[in-house]
């Protein structure tokens, strides 16, 4: 484990469904980092995660988690990872105390002390049935359980979706704490890009089953920019430099993916900073070229 460079290595992964194809995707999540896996609903995030967890069969390609093939070494891999979903996967009739007894049978390295310390920290009641928990409480509970058996990799599928900003921040802080140990890594799938902007080290954009971008978050944000210009100025911009352009009544907002080059090439125009959300928005519409 100490020798590996990447916690997740996905290469040429393909999965075909009727009407959707996860098309030859490749990306890595460096060990000790958190990667944001971004895409709109139906882009292929959940399919990728399910393939990683070996819940569905891949058509081709390879998936290595913590240096091991996810299918060949399934048990070894799964004993070191935790998956967190947007819905609580525990029965509504049970409570946190009872869950600890159950999970001690599921995970060999279940740490009851850590689990209860997270419950106290999140102010989660121990004897209240999960059916009476709020969405935020359910998510905190899932995270408490996920972090209480020494997992080295957290795979989160839309874990922060539907939570209020206070709870989201609390959870993001926990993730940062978890990453203090450099052996730990996180893949956080979400379409809420503001969360990822706060904590992600790297980002991977997926759209309609294809990877659009994958790299360091800061680098991605820094290399992109938005030119806000009039209609005549827009006409002068080389189409090869444009990701896509949002047309307005007064002109256009143009997303460019090589800011350094654009600064030199279009010295008369102002290039604004951009965000992950805008990058996603402009990339998703890249095939249209121009949109309103």
């Amino acid at each position, binding site marked *: 484990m100490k020798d590996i460079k990447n916690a997740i290595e996905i290469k040429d992964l393909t999965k075909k469904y009727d009407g959707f194809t996860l098309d030859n995707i490749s990306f890595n999540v460096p060990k000790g980092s958190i990667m944001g896996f971004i895409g709109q609903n139906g882009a292929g995030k959940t399919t990728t995660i399910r393939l990683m*967890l*070996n*819940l*569905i*069969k891949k058509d081709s390609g390879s998936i290595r988690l913590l240096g091991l093939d996810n299918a060949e070494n399934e*048990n*070894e891999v*799964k*004993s070191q*990872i*935790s*998956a967190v*979903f947007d*819905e*609580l*996967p*525990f*029965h*509504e*009739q*049970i409570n946190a105390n*009872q869950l600890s*007894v*159950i*999970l*001690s*049978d*599921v*995970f*060999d390295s279940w740490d009851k002390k850590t689990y209860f310390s997270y419950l106290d920290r999140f102010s989660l009641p121990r004897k209240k049935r999960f059916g009476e928990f709020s969405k935020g409480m359910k998510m905190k509970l899932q995270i408490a359980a996920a972090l209480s058996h020494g997992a080295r990799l957290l795979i989160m599928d839309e874990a922060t979706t539907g939570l209020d900003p206070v709870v989201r921040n609390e959870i993001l802080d926990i993730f940062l704490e978890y990453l203090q140990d450099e052996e730990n890594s996180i893949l956080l799938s979400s379409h809420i890009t503001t969360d990822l902007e706060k904590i992600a080290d790297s980002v991977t954009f997926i759209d309609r089953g294809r990877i659009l971008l994958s790299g360091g978050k800061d680098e991605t944000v820094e290399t992109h920019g938005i030119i806000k210009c009039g209609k005549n100025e827009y006409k002068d911009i080389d189409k090869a430099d444009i990701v896509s352009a949002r047309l307005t009544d007064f002109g256009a907002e143009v997303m460019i993916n090589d800011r350094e080059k654009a600064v030199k090439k279009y010295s008369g125009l102002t290039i604004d900073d951009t965000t992950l959300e805008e990058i996603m928005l402009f990339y998703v519409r890249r095939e249209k070229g121009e949109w309103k």
Partner: protein
Amino acid sequence: MKGLLYKDLLLSRKYYFVVFLYCMLFALIAVLMRISMICGNLSDNKEVVESLSRNMYILRYTPGAAMLIAFINDGGTDYSDIRSGWLLFSRTTALRPEKLVGARFVFKASALTAALIFSLVYMIVFGLTGGDGITPGMLRNIFSVYFLSIAVSFFATALALVFRKKQISQIICVGTVGVAGLLLTTLMIVKLDKIDASKDFDLLDFLKGEFSGIINYILPAAAALFVISAVLSYITSVKALKRREG
């Protein structure tokens, strides 16, 4: 396995308690009726007592058999595991399917064994109140229901795991057709009209009469069928959990 058994107990305890309460109440009423018949104002009329005894024969089995049959379903835990997302969660962990299915089967068999103990205790009490005790034939009958319940219970888990992506109504349809088919076949083979309920009915004795040529094989064949059915249910369940969706 302790934690998984505990989970099943938490999920099904209310159901078991309600079934137990109903069966206990039924048993109590049946015993009181029998005491009333033997010791009440009708006790002097032997003909009436005999006639009532014949009619009450089935009550010797009803509460226990009802509990055994009701315990086949442990409050819908199989479907609850699917609906709650627990099954999906367990597949993201290193929990082996063999252990998961093993725990379900051990739990169901334990619950059915508890129902068997209830049946036996009740049958003894019912017998004692009439002064006629319990015969080997009666024991064989209730044990037949017990083993059949275990086999069906394991099969139900296998069915739920195999069809986990399908609608519950489809599963119920398949299950109902299966059970109906089983009952119909049994009725055709056993020919119930030949059974004299007024006598101490012993399934094995009855089968001896029906299948005199193959009687020596019936018990071993039934035992083998039970084992095969249980093992097949186990293998099917484990395979269903190992199956990766396409």
